[in-house]
């Protein structure tokens, strides 16, 4: 566990946050079933990504053994009701989870249309946001006033990643957590769990590429990336502004 602030940790080496006081793991942006959406567009990929995403969830939960799991939005990718094979993937996922004796909470993300119906069947609560003491957990796709949020804000949606260059000049991209501050609030941006969606490389050049309305005016140069290779390592890195100067 990497300690961030009070009860908030990073459950390394997994792409998940952890709240100690309620023994809960927090994941975001699974995008299960993206392959189905792609196939509608004429891109036919095998379901390796959904599989590996599910695999990471189960391995990490088996390893950490929390009492609760919170999915912070975009569990599924944006497919509609007709994509039966994708819904089957989701059903398998949730029935597997429900056999693990966990409390599950799902926060609604912008891709999670129609998910409520499925979650009802498993008795899993489905909320737009969840506040617990000083923590506010929400997906991050909707704009909100900072006054309405808790001291610590945990969001997803961004799929942050950081690009580093090695001594020979080769570039490597890593997904990462982003940990920083703004207007007296602490902010943790969760990495996406699966490999599929590129997400945004947080760079200082293009503010337009920040997806979340919350982060749009935030100066990211003070944010610290924690690069993650799921299942292997989480590595703390210097603040973004310093990184860009150094490399």
């Amino acid at each position, binding site marked *: 566990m990497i300690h961030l602030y009070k009860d908030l940790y990073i459950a390394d080496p997994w792409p998940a946050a952890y709240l100690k006081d309620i023994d809960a793991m927090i994941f975001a942006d699974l995008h299960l079933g993206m*392959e189905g*959406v*792609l*196939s*509608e*567009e*004429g*891109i*036919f*990929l*095998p*379901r*390796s*990504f959904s*599989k590996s995403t599910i695999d990471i969830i189960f391995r990490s939960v088996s390893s950490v053994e929390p009492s609760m799991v919170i999915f912070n939005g975009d569990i599924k990718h944006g497919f509609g009701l007709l994509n039966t*094979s994708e819904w089957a993937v989701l059903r398998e996922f949730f029935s597997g989870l429900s056999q693990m004796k966990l409390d599950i909470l799902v926060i609604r993300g912008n891709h999670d249309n129609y998910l409520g119906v499925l979650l009802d069947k498993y008795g899993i609560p489905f909320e737009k946001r969840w506040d617990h003491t000083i923590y506010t957990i929400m997906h991050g796709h909707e704009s909100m006033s900072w006054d309405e949020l808790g001291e610590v804000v945990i969001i997803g949606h961004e799929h942050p990643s950081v690009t*580093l*260059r*090695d*001594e*020979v*000049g*080769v570039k*490597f991209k*890593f997904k990462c957590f982003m940990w920083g501050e703004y207007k007296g609030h602490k902010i943790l941006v969760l990495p996406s769990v699966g*490999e*599929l*969606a*590129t*997400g*945004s*490389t947080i*760079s200082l*050049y*293009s503010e337009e*590429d920040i997806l979340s309305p919350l982060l749009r005016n935030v100066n990211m140069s003070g944010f610290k990336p924690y*690069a993650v*290779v799921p299942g*292997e*390592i989480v*590595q703390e*890195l*210097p603040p973004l502004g*310093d*990184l860009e100067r*150094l*490399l």
Partner: protein
Amino acid sequence: MEYATRRATREEILRLLDEDVAWWFSRFDSLTPPQEYGILPIAEGRNVLITAPTGSGKTLTAFIYIISELFKLAKEGSLDDRVYAIYVSPLRALNNDIYKNLMVPLNEIKEHIRGKGLEFKDIRVGVRTGDTTQSERSRMLRNPPHILITTPESLALVITAPKFRLLLNKVRWVIIDEIHSLCENKRGSHLSLSLERLVELAEKEFVRIGLSATINPLDEVAKFLVGYNDDGTPRDCVIVDTRFHKKMDLRLRAPVEDLIYTSSDRLSEALYHYLSRVISKYRTTLIFTNTRSGAERVTYHLKKLGFIDADELGVHHSSLSREIRFSIEDKLKKGEVRGIVTSTSLELGIDIGYIDAVVQVGSPKSINRGLQRIGRSGHSMDRVSKGYFVALDLDDLIEDGVLIKEAYKGRLDTISIPKGPLDVLAQHIVGMALVKKWSIDEAFKVVRRAYPFRDLDEEKFLSVLRYLSGKYYNLEKYRVYGKIWLDEETGYFGRRGRYLRPIYFQNIGTIPDEVAMIAYHGRRRIGYLEEPFVENLDPGDIFVLGGGTYRFLGCSGNKVFVEPVKGLRPTVPSWISEMLPLTFDLGEAVAGFRYDIWRLLRDGREDEARKYIEKEMRANKWAVDNIIRYIKIQGEFLEKLGLDTFHSRENLIIEQYIVYNERMRYIIFHTVFGRRVNNVLARAYAYVARDITGTSIRMQVDDNSFVLMIPLRVELDIQSLLEKVKSKNLRSLVSEAVKNSQLIWRIFRHVANRAFMILSHYKGRKTSLTRQQINSEIIYNAVRDIPGFPLVEEAIREIIEDKMDVIRAEAVLRDVEEGRRRWIVLREYDLPSPFAHGVLLRGMQDAVLMEDRVKVLQNLYNRIRERIEGIRA
């Protein structure tokens, strides 16, 4: 295979033809060599391959007998409403030219016959390409052309179209034009399968006529044209070899006295002056540069210089709009242009009127290509092909000179024809399935008749069938992506799904879409950049786009952020993807030549050396001076390092250039084998070095050498590195290296496109990868671990055999192992040799990446920590 030796007389040919066609043909006083040797075999129903330079009457050779037969039938009243002859060429512009050129004799003969009072059915000619409108296609169905002019892609469509294909079942002649530009790439592989499918469709065997510019070896091209019998023997073919019948006047020029120390501005100026002088000498001059941006730049400066009227100058390349290109081609045909500058787009045979001289700026990188280009001048058999080669750097100068020498000796490059491309196969299997249900064995037989697939493994064939039936997606129970149904027990396959026909018809072809990234300055759009180009950019790199220079700031998704900079030199070459590789044969000739000159110099026979260069290479004084100087300097450098011999075909010299302020060791391998072979060797050695050192290895490759960059702190014994790469393990090493490179992301996407795994057009929409928020890397990662996935294997094959050349690289290593060549390792030095400057400054960069991402992250973190501590200290 036999070579045509029987030379027909004009009278024989005229007697052979229908009397009215003979009336028309008799206007020509004499036959051209292709006509002398080629018309009779065609009349005898033999397959024929005709190779000759442009302007030698190849097309007429192909068509005259066909026209004669068609008129005979028309006059007898037995000309049916179906297709008798198909003409295929790779260029729509060429198709349009051929159409016009056919209509001339057809109309004149028609008028002549009508003048005699005879009535008969018109002989119809139709053009069918991607440009043909739907209404034109319907019309063609109702009123079929007797001669169909088309492209390889459209041929693959018409043999699959349910109604139109029935009109092809009695076709008698198929003409493949510009076959030299087709056989070396997948478009040609695609065409060869179309031809075999056409054989299945046709009731009787048809005659194949291949037309080619200068190419080598003719036997292989002939086999490519005609294909194989089921017993594995090649079908019969008559080869008409008139490649060298046109006289050549080739000259080597250096535009300045000293190519090393002249500033690039002065060099450019000298070049433009030289070009202006050549243009003023002739009525029309065609100038080849090797890149589109080069063509633009030269044209701009020629206009500015003002020796030639700006209206009489033009530029032509494939990035220009069709209207602009047509207008230039038109002006050329009318003789209104005196100087036209192009990259590669005017290489092929579209009619551009009379060209008096061709100038090649830089090196065309291949003897065959050089001759094809020069052959554009002197547009009839008796005129001489005039070619000037003007080089802007020393390596190009030597290449051009050696090319001239080899050309006069009649020595050409050997082509490489892609072997068994599985993505092309997948596309055709879909086409075949659309037509009927197939037995696996029968389909396999048909496929193996095509030259590229003659050695196809049955396992590979099955793996493609399985991929198409959705088997590789069957990680769970869902066979949702199957395009065919496959029953291996009964041994049959057929079509599946109602979208299969539109998928095939809208996605046919082998030319890949490149992902376009948009360059922005702030909010302003500047232009488009290709994904592979951007992948290689580092922040701070300066490049040229649309005539301006920009600094690369960063990119995100498909947006590239840049800022304009004035007066700064580009740090990366633009249009990297355009650069043609030096051929292996020309490279070997260069290596041999450099050694021969060095030997003469070392033995004090400089005069002899000068005379040799002047005579064999038709070189001017400055060219001779520059070459002698270059070889002398290199010889002196090597002497200083204690070497008493020189680079040659046998001596492969390895330098170690230490750059202390970068803390890097540059290991430079001097291997004049061309970029395709050098890329294989570089990657294999880099891969092994990476495992030894535990770091990513950066490399730079060009036609004459390759460089591996290793951090100084790492110990590396070059001998042991050399030991680890053998001809036996080369293929597997480089396959592994390639699997982990950035190159495969892009190539795999192209393969996936061709094999219909990623469709450009689906359900009425154009697909956009960027809109889906995925990119080539992600697509590749989805499939890379599927064992035996044929598309990944094809991507690897395309890279190591077609883009690079693993087969010749293996041969080189075998030569080393068997003592015919040797590595010579020089001691470390803090300067690079003159021969190394080219690759260091302009070589293409790449790297073999560390795969263990955990290790990468840890190393990166350590490096960052060191930097931070360094800053604090």
